[in-house]
């Protein structure tokens, strides 16, 4: 069953279209990321699902109902840019919001205590929201959204405006939220965030979902990688270029485009044989970034058919590279044996 279902949703403001036929489905328990630049219509989309706005055309079903009022309390909402009442302490605020959600008595106290604990707010529970750093306020935002144990959570730009450390903290908390099993629809323009948290992503561009893909499907070897080395002597460079026209050298960077596992293995072997220290081996672009750019350029179909580069971890050391080479050798050897049989 789909927890969120949008069919051909149109929305415009004073005749200016914001969404032009958005259709998407989020299965129960899945995490769906809506990616798009500022102004793409992500907040409009979330406000439509939350029932603040009404579509000009099309239908929206949340937990099987087209009337969001019927599912109030089963949907949590985290707004963009930490918009909360700042004159309350964290505890007071959660108590009030819990009451508005229909909680009371021992259950309310238990839920507030549980969320304060879950989001690391114990130390600041009696501080005013207005006096908290932005990262803490966003934790309060997550805590309030989950207070009534909703089945669906709508999260709008959870890490916008946070410093890198704050972003990391919130992403870690969102990973924990994900484990609770609720359905999450998250709007973001941070690709790493979507990559880490989402099962499926949709690129919102031009008022439509320009492309959709399962995030795991984007993590497959192909396309191109960049190998950064400490130094690249002319002799090594010549040898590398001789390997294949797909190898391009530029000072301390070697680009394999298109890349193949065999070519990658050859290049790495050559570098190691020449005693060249490898600094990093990484996809030329982040797989989601590549998917995103292709979607925005209209090069990708709706099924996420883009080929993404391999997930080469940055800063890969020589030992790990040797292991990978040995595995590749082993695989090649096994293939040859299979063919000879």
């Amino acid at each position: 069953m789909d927890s969120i279902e949008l069919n051909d949703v149109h929305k415009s403001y004073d005749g200016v279209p914001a969404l032009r036929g958005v259709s998407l489905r989020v299965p129960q328990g899945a995490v769906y990321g809506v990616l798009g630049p500022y102004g793409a219509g992500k907040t409009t989309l979330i406000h439509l699902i939350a029932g603040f706005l009404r579509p000009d055309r099309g239908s929206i079903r949340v937990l099987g109902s087209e009337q969001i009022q019927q599912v109030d309390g089963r949907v949590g909402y985290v707004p963009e840019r930490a918009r909360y009442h700042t004159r309350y302490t964290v505890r007071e605020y959660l108590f009030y919001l819990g009451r508005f959600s229909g909680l009371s008595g021992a259950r309310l106290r238990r839920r507030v205590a549980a969320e304060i604990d879950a989001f690391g707010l114990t130390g600041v529970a009696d501080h005013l929201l207005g006096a908290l750093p932005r990262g803490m306020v966003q934790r309060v935002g997550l805590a309030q959204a989950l207070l009534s144990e909703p089945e669906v959570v709508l999260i709008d730009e959870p890490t916008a405006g946070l410093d890198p450390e704050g972003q990391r903290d919130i992403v870690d908390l969102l990973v924990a939220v994900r484990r609770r099993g609720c359905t999450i629809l998250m709007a973001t323009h941070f690709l790493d965030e979507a990559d880490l948290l989402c099962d499926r992503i949709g690129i919102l561009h031009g008022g439509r979902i320009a492309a959709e893909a399962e995030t795991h499907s984007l993590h497959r070897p192909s396309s191109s990688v960049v190998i950064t080395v400490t130094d690249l002597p002319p002799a090594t460079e010549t040898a590398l270029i001789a390997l294949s026209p797909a190898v391009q050298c530029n000072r301390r960077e070697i680009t394999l485009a298109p890349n193949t596992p065999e070519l990658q293995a050859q290049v790495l072997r050559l570098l190691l044989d020449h005693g060249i220290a490898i600094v990093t081996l990484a996809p030329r672009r982040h797989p989601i970034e590549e998917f995103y750019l292709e979607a925005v350029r209209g090069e990708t179909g709706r099924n996420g058919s883009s080929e993404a580069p391999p997930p080469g971890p940055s800063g890969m050391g020589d030992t790990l590279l040797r292991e990978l080479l040995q595995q590749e050798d082993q695989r090649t050897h096994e293939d040859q044996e299979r063919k000879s049989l």
Partner: protein
Amino acid sequence: MNALVRTCWFAVFTLSEYLRSGRIVVEVLATAAAYYLFFRRWTMPMTPEYFFSTAGLLMLGLTVYTGSTILALGDRAVGYVTLARRLGRGPYLLGLYLAVLAVSWSVYGAICLLIALTNPIGGLGFVGWVLGTIPLLLNLALLAAFLTLLTPIVLPAPWRLAVLALVALAFSGNLIGGATLSSLPAPVAVALDVTRTILSTPMLPAFTGYAISVSRDYNGASAAVPLAQLFLVIGLLALAVYSFAKREIVFSA
């Protein structure tokens, strides 16, 4: 029942925020100023008529301030978090309304208490005070309900302008009357007169309520006036809640 409880909790929440914001200082200062200027012991003793007519007008002015300030608290982006819950739009709006009433009625109570302690009104017993106070408080409730209806989150700007235009037309008797009215072509004068009569009818309870508050004379049909005030309050609030429920929520700030 649950909706009523949530409405009350939201009113408490709003009141609490209003108090913490410090805006209540204006009401406190206004109460002190009103007492000092109009109700402290003068050489002449204060009559009940003087008290109810003066307090009735002062409180209307103060309710406009309180109402617009508290209702503006409900028109901020922080409201999304509140409305995303089970609270509901009706309780949200009624909670704001109740908070306005609580402040407005409390200020009136404070003025009455100050007067009772320092400058008791001659010839006004408790019953007389209650009889004058009921229509006065209902008038404040009526004004607060009207302000609620005119909030940007309830009515879009063109509708608000239209409502205000109708009110202006209903009150236009002072500007377009007598010689001016008779100088207009007969059909226009008749049409204007009829329109004014129709438009000013809903305001009758407010005006007669004020008059009864001052006179405390409930003889004959006057006894029905507080009831008419109450029904008008309910009607305005129902209209506001209906409109708010139908509107898209785009908060101003």
